[in-house]
């Protein structure tokens, strides 16, 4: 008979066990960070490039896997996102050095980069792999260790991807434990990670509940709020281009990105032309009956219908009994009001675009502000115009930190069709109850120790060229006398460290419930 390892006394759910689980993962990360901070720019970037390469190569595989596992989105679009968060992301920051000290002769200052240490990264179900790629790479660029807490609905593909990138990083010379993932995340366990003293900062992307929890943890956090982007098309816009870009944006990954356009606000004078152009680009403009069907289907008493997240337009139309041609990409729902009375003016993570006609620009601005009062403060907005004054007035009025001009908002606000920093964490700043208002990048994961000289001209600045901090690189391996092969790496495939005793993976149904709950929280107002 084979021996079995059984659990007689299960303590997996006790605070002591949860804290213990979190502590050991985080301490391993702290050790890794302590060694990683000794690496120079060249070695650091060689690790970053090795990881980016493998992330890029596997973009398609994980895109398919994520769609399969979560049921969200479009695999081809997810592949693009997974690729954008690999080589292009690294190339965007290629010329910036977050490792080598900077010498500023004019201010008589030397600035030494100090990595945060251990980053706790929450990743969402809607963009699981792109967010993992992005967070891992910005952590590596800044010599931080990272612990990923994946969304349970995308757990399997996330765990696999994180293990792969961890292996690649280590083979490229990164310290063991620089990339870890919580294999069986539960809310109480993740909360232990968030409140541990060993977490330097939580980088929270995902449901509002988790973001607020990160901010309540007593640790530093960079969290972002939900989106609900208004897009304005004014009478000076190139209507055909505007329509094309909006449809392209709204159908991208079936609106699973939080930067997607939620409410299209059009000036009366261009209403008909715009509708025509939208139709030509693959939109179906709903009639009043269709809109009522959509409203009832997408929003019920408990909030947004999460079944529709990342589903395509034809699927949604069928589900609520609207007959549309098979090539339709976006359902456009004209609405007469914006505000609490109209559920369709809330965030919709699916290719349903609310459409509201206004008489004047000032009315457009006040309606856009109203959209953002419902949700999405600090997030994104877009404008299609050729009038700079209109753009400035709009941007100065709406409470967001990025207004995309004449570009698809989904891609543009996330930095993929504009010069904004490419990101999967859109800082929603003070409007959106967050600490940072720009697209999150590596610069937010490193602080600088400043060696500041006496500004008096009597005190000369030192000569710091060629003087470096002690970047000793990896720790030498301690010898173990007399042990054959003791210097060989004993790395083993990492198995689960999370409590597995007596617990089984949550069923599909439980997952659905969990996501539903989270989304309700986001979409409720």
């Amino acid at each position, binding site marked *: 008979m084979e021996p079995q390892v059984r659990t007689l006394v299960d303590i997996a759910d006790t605070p002591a066990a949860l804290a213990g689980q979190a502590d050991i993962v985080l*301490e391993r990360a702290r050790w890794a960070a302590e060694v990683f901070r000794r690496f120079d720019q060249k070695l650091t970037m060689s690790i970053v490039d090795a990881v980016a390469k493998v992330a890029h190569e596997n973009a398609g595989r994980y895109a398919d896997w994520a769609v399969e596992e979560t049921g969200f989105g479009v695999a081809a679009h997810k592949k693009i996102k997974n690729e954008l968060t690999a080589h292009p992301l690294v190339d965007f920051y290629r010329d910036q050095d977050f490792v080598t000290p900077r010498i500023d002769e004019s201010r008589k200052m030397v600035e030494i980069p100090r990595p945060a240490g251990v980053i706790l990264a929450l990743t969402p179900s809607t963009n699981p792999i792109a967010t993992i790629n992005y967070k891992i790479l910005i952590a590596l660029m800044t010599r931080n260790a990272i612990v990923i807490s994946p969304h349970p609905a995308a757990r399997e593909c996330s765990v696999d991807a994180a293990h792969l990138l961890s292996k690649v990083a280590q083979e490229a010379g990164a310290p*063991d434990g620089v990339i870890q993932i919580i294999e069986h995340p539960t809310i109480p366990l993740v909360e232990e990670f968030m409140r541990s003293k060993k977490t330097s900062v939580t980088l929270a992307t995902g449901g509002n509940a988790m973001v607020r929890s990160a901010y309540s943890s007593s640790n530093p956090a960079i969290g972002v709020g939900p989106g609900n982007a208004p897009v304005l098309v004014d009478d000076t816009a190139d209507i055909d281009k505007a329509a094309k870009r909006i449809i392209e944006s709204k159908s991208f990954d079936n609106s699973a990105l939080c930067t997607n356009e939620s409410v299209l606000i059009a000036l009366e004078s261009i209403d008909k032309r715009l509708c025509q152009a939208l139709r030509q680009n693959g939109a179906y403009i709903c009639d009043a009956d269709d809109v009522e069907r959509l409203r009832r289907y997408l929003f019920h008493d408990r909030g947004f219908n999460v079944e529709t997240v990342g589903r395509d337009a034809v699927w949604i139309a069928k589900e609520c009994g609207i007959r549309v041609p098979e090539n339709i990409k976006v359902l456009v729902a004209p609405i007469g009001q914006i505000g609490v009375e109209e559920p369709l003016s809330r965030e919709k993570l699916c290719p349903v675009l609310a459409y509201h006609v206004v008489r004047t620009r000032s009315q457009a601005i006040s309606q856009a502000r109203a959209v953002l009062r419902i949700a999405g403060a600090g997030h994104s907005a877009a404008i299609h115009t050729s009038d700079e004054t209109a753009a400035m007035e709009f941007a100065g009025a709406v409470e967001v930190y990025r207004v995309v001009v004449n570009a698809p908002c989904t891609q543009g606000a996330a930095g993929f069709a504009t010069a904004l920093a490419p990101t999967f964490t859109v800082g929603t700043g003070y409007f959106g109850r967050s600490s940072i208002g720009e697209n999150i990048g590596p610069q937010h994961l490193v602080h600088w120790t400043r060696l500041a000289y006496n500004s008096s001209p009597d005190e000369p600045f030192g000569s710091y060229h060629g003087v470096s901090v002690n970047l000793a690189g990896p720790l030498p391996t301690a010898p*173990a006398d007399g042990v054959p092969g003791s210097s060989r790496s004993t790395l083993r495939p990492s198995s689960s460290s999370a409590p597995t005793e007596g617990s089984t993976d949550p069923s599909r149904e439980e997952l659905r419930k969990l996501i539903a709950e989270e989304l309700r929280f986001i979409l409720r107002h």
Partner: protein
Amino acid sequence: MSEAKLDFLDRSRAFWNPGKTQDWQDMGIDLVIDRREGYYLYDMDGHRLIDLHLNGGTYNLGHRNPELVQALKTGSERFDMGNHHFPALARTALAEALAACAPSPDMRYTAYGSGGGEAIDIALKTARHATQKRKIVSIIKAYHGHTGLAVKTGDDRFSKLFLSEDTEGEFIQVPFNDLNAMEDALRGRDVAAVIMETIPATYGFPMPHEGYLPGVKQLCERYDALYIADEVQTGLMRCGEIWACTKYGIEPDIMVTGKGIGGGIYPIACVLISERCGGWLKEDGFGHISTGGGAELGCIVAMKVLEMVQRPEVRTMVRYISDYMRAGLDQIMAAYPDFFIGIRQHGVVMGLEFNHEQGAKPVMKHLYDNGVWAIFSSLDPRVLQFKPGLLMTQADCEEVIRRVEIAVGLARDEVMGASHHTYRKSA
């Protein structure tokens, strides 16, 4: 020292152990451990010490590790020590968990003691039964415990005092790292077993030479003796694998684990026995009886210990801790080359060697004054036992290195004279 401590020490002399109490005072170590948490000990006067003694790995996972305390608490809602005569849920569950991670696939049974000495006695009795021979070979300066048979395998310092040394010629001791001497001892084919600590702890962790332990195992096979691995101090991940003997390619016939297996929370020790050595368990399963051995609450704690030490994070941590400590100690050694002359190391099992026959004692004393508790090797006081825990934090390791550098400098001046007061480059 506080009045309260002075008073307490008087009581300790009066009611507990006058000799031991006084010896520590004579060595300048006035430690009375009160509160304890993680790798910290707090003296009853509030003095904090980072514990690098850990009682031979008993506190591998730290003092009062919260998960182990929880396991004990939750376990006590259902179990107590249990009835050692009957098949028992927890004893069998732990035996299965041990079999699943045993150093040899043949190892099947576990017999239980309440402590390491009793477990060693069980191992020796098992070997004698299996081979129907009496002689036991051990290493000079070996240490396997203080019970009836175990004490005879060790230094006679501990047996003669009680008139308990071997008088029948049944316990043979040979020098460590000497295969010829080992062969001479085994050649007569009258030896039941060789008992071997994978790295002799109390002797200051001399490292086995390349090929020595596998050579001993081969000799055992050639001369029909059993190989008993004493993994009490070296097991449970301290050397980077769950059992250190496996790193030397040894598949022992019998293995003993103790100390750390009880997590410092509930004493228990285990003897893993291969199928071919377990005959007495079938012939007369009541042959060894122990009311406290394998107490079921201890089994619950031990199962948690086994689960914890096998987490992948622990493997990484042990490597970081041993590499980091070694790098720091190498620098200190370079700063005091005439005094600090060697480091013996396998994972987080370390011995620091000093150039004086009692050199580890002043280092221990100055470490104590500087907030670190590490003990000299009683059978080789040139060597300081230096045993960081498996879960030690980077911050605490840095603290230890900082304090060791100061203490070694002070001890060196004390032993060798404060000859060079020049500024030494900091380690």
